[in-house]
């Protein structure tokens, strides 16, 4: 278990995005509250990673930390975020601007709220298109039209002249995706991109994201509370709980062989027709968890984060589970809560 193979994805050199031991605190009147504790993950170019978790798990904060869009009271106190080898934490506002939009772009949960209601779509997508170096206004405009057509919006000219309130939720999210991709970003961070949409529209948007990913080779980090969405659309899935990644694995493995008790609980809590007649929310453990995992007794510090930093151990290729430092020689029972 050397630090280099911490979550075993790949050596840092090949990663598009490499987050190491990221700690995030919020300064509140009651003192600092830890929001992220030792988040570590890697993302390969073109890969799609789902980050799932419930409210307060830190999944959105992880995304915002990468974008450098943390709330004012948020403070990164340790760890690193590297994009193509470039350290992002502590970067100047100017340097950060050169990365936003051009290398990393973001898609928000409620597209209609992520579009300025008093400005035309055109003016907003142009802001992104012109972020590219050496693009004339006319070229940028052309690119915008192309990109709007590419995300499946008929009549891009008209869309350019419209306002967000004239668009449906699905159309607005297509616009947001066009804005995110127009400057050629290699990584898109989508924060619950379909949570506000109807199922049939959600399917269209997810389909579009997958399409763009295969066409443009863009990598995708998808933050979602919906395990089904992650399962169907991501190569790998990281499960977050109280500011930590408790398990990270290839999508199919995670659902076939979940190891961390929290992952097991989360999957067990999902209602499905197959579960009919059986109570949900009960953990039926598939395999014994590694010894001493973080969730064992939910010993949580103030602010909700486990005081003892867990370590990731690899239980199968590419499948990592958070685990407290095992006590030497201790052979205690797993202590899981059934």
């Amino acid at each position, binding site marked *: 278990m050397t630090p280099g193979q911490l979550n075993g994805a790949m050596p840092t050199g090949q990663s598009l995005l490499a987050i190491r031991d990221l700690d995030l605190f919020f300064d509140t009147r009651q003192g600092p509250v830890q929001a992220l504790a030792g988040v570590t993950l890697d993302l390969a170019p073109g890969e799609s990673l789902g980050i799932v978790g419930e409210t307060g798990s830190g999944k959105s904060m992880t995304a915002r930390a990468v974008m450098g869009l943390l709330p004012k009271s948020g403070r990164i106190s340790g760890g690193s975020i590297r994009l193509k080898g470039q350290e992002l934490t502590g970067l100047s506002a100017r340097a950060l601007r050169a990365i*936003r*939009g051009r290398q990393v772009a973001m898609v928000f949960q409620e597209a209609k709220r992520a579009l300025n209601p008093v*400005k035309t779509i055109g003016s907003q997508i142009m802001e992104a298109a012109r972020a590219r170096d050496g693009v004339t206004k006319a070229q940028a405009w052309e690119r915008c039209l192309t990109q709007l057509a590419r995300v499946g919006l008929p009549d891009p000219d008209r869309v350019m002249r419209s306002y967000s309130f004239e668009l449906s939720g699905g159309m607005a999210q297509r616009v947001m995706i066009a804005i995110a991709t127009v400057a050629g970003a290699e990584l898109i961070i989508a924060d619950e991109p379909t949570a506000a949409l109807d199922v049939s529209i959600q399917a269209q948007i997810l389909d579009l994201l997958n399409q763009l990913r295969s066409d443009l080779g863009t990598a995708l980090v998808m933050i979602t509370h919906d395990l089904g969405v992650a399962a169907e659309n991501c190569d790998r899935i990281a499960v977050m709980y109280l500011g930590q990644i408790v398990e990270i694995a290839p999508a199919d493995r995670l659902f076939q062989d979940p190891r961390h008790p929290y992952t097991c609980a989360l999957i067990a809590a999902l209602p499905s027709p197959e579960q009919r007649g059986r109570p949900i929310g009960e953990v039926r453990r598939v395999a014994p968890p590694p010894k001493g995992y973080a969730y064992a007794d939910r010993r949580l510090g103030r602010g909700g984060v486990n005081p003892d930093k867990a370590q990731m151990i690899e239980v199968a290729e590419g499948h990592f589970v958070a685990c407290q430092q095992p006590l030497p020689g201790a052979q205690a029972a797993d202590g899981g809560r059934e």
Partner: protein
Amino acid sequence: MSNSHSVLAKIGKRFVNSAFVLLVLTVVVFAAMRAIPGDPVETIVGVEAVSEETLAALRKEMGLDQSYVVQYFTWLGNLLQGDMGQSLQNHEPVLPILLDRLKATAELAFLGVLIGAVVGVAAGTIAGMTRGSFFDTLVMFVTLSGISIPVFWFGTILIVVFSVYFDIFPTGGMISYEVSLTHVTGFKLLDSLLTLNGAAFLNVLSHIVLPAITLSTAPAALIARTTRASVLETINEDYVNAALARGLSFPAVVMRHVMRNAMIPVVTILGLEIGVYLGGSIVTETLFSWPGLGRHLMQAILAHDYPVVQGAIIFYAVIIVFINLIVDISYGIIDPRVHA
């Protein structure tokens, strides 16, 4: 979707509503004047002992012997023809006097609104952007004082300090007696500019500074606080984050995405503040002997000069209604959703 037809229809509708409001107001003003104790005739006659017959003759001459209903409709009928009657005191026609006085008030109010809006919006925006900073704390403190201090007290302090003690500005009036100014529009600052009369311009300016500051203090404070709150709210909107995520700089985001949205509630406050401005102008004009509508109204009320008071209040009402109409139209310019 917006189209010019529906916009015009909306404005037309607003005009009809405004006319109705004004009509109701004429009744209220007329009734209120009659309800105030005191008799205009006796006020004019003063303390001299006059026979009942003389008083009755005077009343008949002024039309005050008729029933209130007849008086009202006579007045309303004339009003609709642009005739506001004659002053009971000096028998001059009301309308031309009021129009003349209105110009002085307009100049004062315009400058007051300008100072209030510019100072208020600027202070509020910077305070909102730097929440929790020293400047923000300062703005919050100063604006709270600005809202709390009564106009007459603040004006008096300004006169005492800047006119009496330091003798920088005159204590009152609009233009010094010895300064000559050619009449072009009747707006003195404008006229002095049009006639390239620098001396007169500076003279009027020195007269207008203190009352304009007095007038604008409370509204500026309120506008600053509203702007600050509005900027704070807008800055947390998703579209601001989204604009930052596209690689725009923070100042650029504030200019392009925060200001226009943040101005929507500010415009509302500004519209509502017009009433405050006009109310404040009565006190301010009296205090600074500014020959405007407010001071004239004050004098007319004391003299029970019904036609002048009624006329002046109708003037105020028309101004407020008209400015609110402009505010409503400006929403449509700021916010495209209004037409939807």
